[in-house]
């Protein structure tokens, strides 16, 4: 067996070598682990989309070069590994040493030489690359001590940042496909289904429907009406400000494949589809490589692990339509049609792709399945809170110090996520609101920071879990503008099939536009509120049905701010263009002329080294001067 194994190389090229059985998988894993020296230094260079954009491939290249130049023949030469996203994106590019956990942030190409010299040869940390806690000003050398990571509980993300996503051997080394082997060899499909039900897993894509119950419906329908069943991984992560699914597909694609294969076994499906947004090219690439490697090892395809079970997966790229995250629209798109939703019921679990029972789960939901099988439903159901078990991944973005991806047990409070993990709001002592659930979610004000983050508590305050976007806003963000932003997004993405959504969104947007111009009346605010309720009740799918959430929650919690717009004609946050004026503080302005050069209107004047002024009558309020001013002299009110 040894020779055949050696042919499975890291380069992604895999020779035909099929694992004959579950025992074969275990033996293969043993052989991979035996080849590896646990004490050998592994230098992990994050290759998530964020770190790549910040230059991590150059960092990895420079490290390789410096290590070669150092001529470390006597020592064990460290291995450089490129992995998926570690989540701490605002600190990238990240370089982490294993097994020690030494954590370097914002590493640049020209830091490589010093890292090799100081850390590898002399065994000391490079202090200036260590993470400094912005609140205590303390240096924190190891990743597991950094608050951003310390308060997380990584279940679905557990392998991301440790494995090379395009090398299946890494996945197998950390225990990948063990759960599949267990399900196929020691559990019946019914037992798998029961385990998922007992775990209390709920859909991570937005609705929060119990996954086991959905599967049960499909199994029952297939029994009544024999024929094929399909499984679909929904990776059409459309919510702006959310990148959980991207990270999972990029960083641990096999977790999704394994989950889907286990699901297919429980459901009796033989064909699966993963629907990925076209804006995620790296996710498509990593999933394609993962599928190819899994097929080559006989973990996907015919006669998986010699058990006689057949299942294969195909990738479909989305074509840029938000509504295709909705199940029936997604199915239409898979069938090569325009992605318009159809009324439910029948639900896809009854009648989906090609009219057959189809289970569509979010890729994060699928990523939970192998863990439930491996560690048991009981273990899973103890994570989180009773009606929202397990963990949830959030993308914590916006006005927060630690922007990134966090996985926390359900039920943790909103305030803890933003403050303990997110490190609070830059330059301010509190956030103004947190928007959860994407365009269909709601704005939760600071006063409700103790709200537990679980499916039911979020719904109770008018927001929703959604897919896991968590956008932090501070006092410079205007709630009317944010509501407008989401409405405009949804108006553009509305497929136009049903009237409440197609025209209702336009009508709501007209109200908001009016408010942002300081027009309208208090009565209009109430009218908008009742219009919103009607659209919720009358829309065909969730896109329209949840579209009023941003408006309803902002009116509920920030009515004063709406009133300031329509009654006082002011935008307290300084965002709504028609209600603001820019000016320059003569006390602070040093006359550097940066603003005057940036002004597209040429309406800023003043002598060099003397305070400048803005001609308000010509100003188009583009904000360029404010962005360019190096001393913060441009004010807005």
């Amino acid at each position, binding site marked *: 067996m040894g020779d055949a194994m050696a042919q499975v190389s890291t380069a992604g090229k895999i020779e035909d070598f099929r694992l004959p059985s579950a025992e074969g998988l275990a033996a293969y894993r043993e052989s991979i682990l035996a080849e590896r020296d646990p004490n050998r230094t592994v230098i992990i260079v994050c290759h998530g989309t964020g770190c790549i954009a910040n230059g991590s491939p150059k960092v990895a290249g420079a490290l390789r070069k410096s290590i070669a130049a150092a001529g470390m023949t006597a020592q064990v030469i460290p291995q450089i590994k490129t992995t998926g996203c570690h989540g701490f994106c605002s600190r990238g590019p990240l370089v982490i040493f294993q097994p020690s956990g030494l954590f370097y942030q914002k590493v640049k190409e020209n830091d490589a030489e010093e890292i090799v010299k100081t850390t590898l040869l002399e065994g000391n940390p490079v202090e200036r690359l260590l993470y400094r806690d912005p609140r205590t000003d303390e240096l924190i050398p190891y990743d597991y001590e950094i608050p951003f990571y310390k308060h997380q509980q990584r279940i679905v993300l557990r392998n991301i940042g440790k494995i090379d996503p395009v090398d299946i051997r890494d996945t197998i080394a950390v225990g990948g496909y063990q759960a599949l082997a267990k399900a196929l060899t020691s559990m019946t499909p019914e037992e798998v289904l029961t385990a998922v039900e007992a775990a209390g897993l709920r859909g991570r894509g937005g609705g929060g429907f119990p996954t086991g119950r959905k599967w049960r419906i499909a199994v029952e329908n297939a029994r009544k009406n024999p024929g094929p069943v399909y499984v679909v991984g929904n990776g059409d*992560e459309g919510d702006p400000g959310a990148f959980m699914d991207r990270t999972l597909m990029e960083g641990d694609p096999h977790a999704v494949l394994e989950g889907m294969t286990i699901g297919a076994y429980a459901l009796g499906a033989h064909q699966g589809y993963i629907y990925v947004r*076209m804006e995620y090219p790296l996710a498509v690439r990593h999933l394609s490589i993962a599928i190819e490697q899994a097929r080559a090892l006989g973990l996907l395809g015919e006669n998986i692990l010699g058990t006689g079970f057949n299942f294969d997966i195909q990738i479909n790229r989305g074509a840029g339509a938000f509504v295709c995250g909705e199940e029936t629209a997604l199915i239409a798109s898979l069938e*090569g*049609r*325009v992605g318009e939703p159809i009324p439910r019921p029948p639900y896809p679990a009854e009648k989906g792709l090609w009219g057959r029972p189809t289970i569509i789960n979010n890729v994060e939901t699928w990523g939970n399945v192998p863990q439930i099988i491996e560690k048991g439903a009981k273990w899973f159901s103890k994570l989180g809170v009773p009606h929202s078990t397990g963990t949830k991944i959030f993308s914590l*973005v916006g006005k927060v110090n630690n922007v990134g991806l966090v996985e926390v047990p359900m039920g943790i409070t909103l305030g803890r996520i933003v403050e303990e993990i997110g490190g609070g709001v830059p330059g301010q002592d509190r956030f103004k609101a947190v928007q959860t659930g994407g365009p269909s979610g709601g704005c939760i004000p600071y006063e409700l920071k103790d709200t537990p983050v679980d499916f039911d508590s979020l719904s109770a305050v008018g927001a929703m879990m959604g897919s896991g976007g968590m956008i932090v806003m501070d006092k410079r963000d205007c709630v009317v503008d944010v509501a407008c932003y989401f409405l405009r997004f949804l108006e553009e993405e509305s497929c136009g099939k049903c009237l409440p959504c197609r025209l209702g969104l336009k009508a709501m947007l007209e109200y908001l536009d009016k408010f942002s111009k300081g027009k309208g009346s208090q009565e209009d605010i109430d009218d908008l509120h009742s219009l919103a309720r009607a659209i919720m009740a009358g829309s065909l799918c969730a896109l329209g049905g949840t579209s009023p959430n941003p408006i309803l929650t902002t009116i509920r919690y920030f009515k004063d701010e709406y009133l300031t717009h329509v009654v006082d004609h002011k935008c307290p946050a300084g965002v709504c263009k028609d209600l603001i004026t820019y000016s320059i503080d003569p006390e602070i302005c040093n006359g550097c002329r940066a603003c005057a050069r940036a002004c597209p209107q040429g309406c800023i004047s003043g002598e060099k080294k003397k305070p400048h002024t803005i001609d308000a009558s010509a100003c188009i309020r583009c904000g360029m001067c404010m962005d360019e001013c190096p001393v913060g002299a441009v004010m807005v009110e």
Partner: protein
Amino acid sequence: MSESFGNIEAILDRFPPQPEHLISALQDVQAKFNYISPAVMRAVCDHLGVPISRGWAVATFFKSFRLEPRGMHEIKVCLGTACHLKGGARLVEALERDLAVTRGHTSKDLNFDLDTVNCLGACALAPVVVVDENYQPTATHRKLKKVLKELK
């Protein structure tokens, strides 16, 4: 066009003649020709046995399909929520002024396409702009001007 039709057949041969492959086939064809011309659409629909009206319905419904020739360079400004809060909209407006083009269109000299995208899922880089597949993290108007100048 006759020459490129040789190419299109090579692409279409990868797809069995079934309507379900319409979206994937259009994506691959567009990747090759950079937009979908009426002739290309006819070839795709004929191959898959789809009425041409359905081909156009799909191509006009989904945002990623282009029905007009594209510019040399592609600028995509992210307008996801995080980018919105951090000034993405101001960047688009500035680029619209600089390039004398409105979003979703190509500049007169066919040098640049200016587009907006809903979210690139790279929120830590906000505001982010992608110029010809290169991510420009924490973009500013000044940085973008420099990048575009190099491409001119």
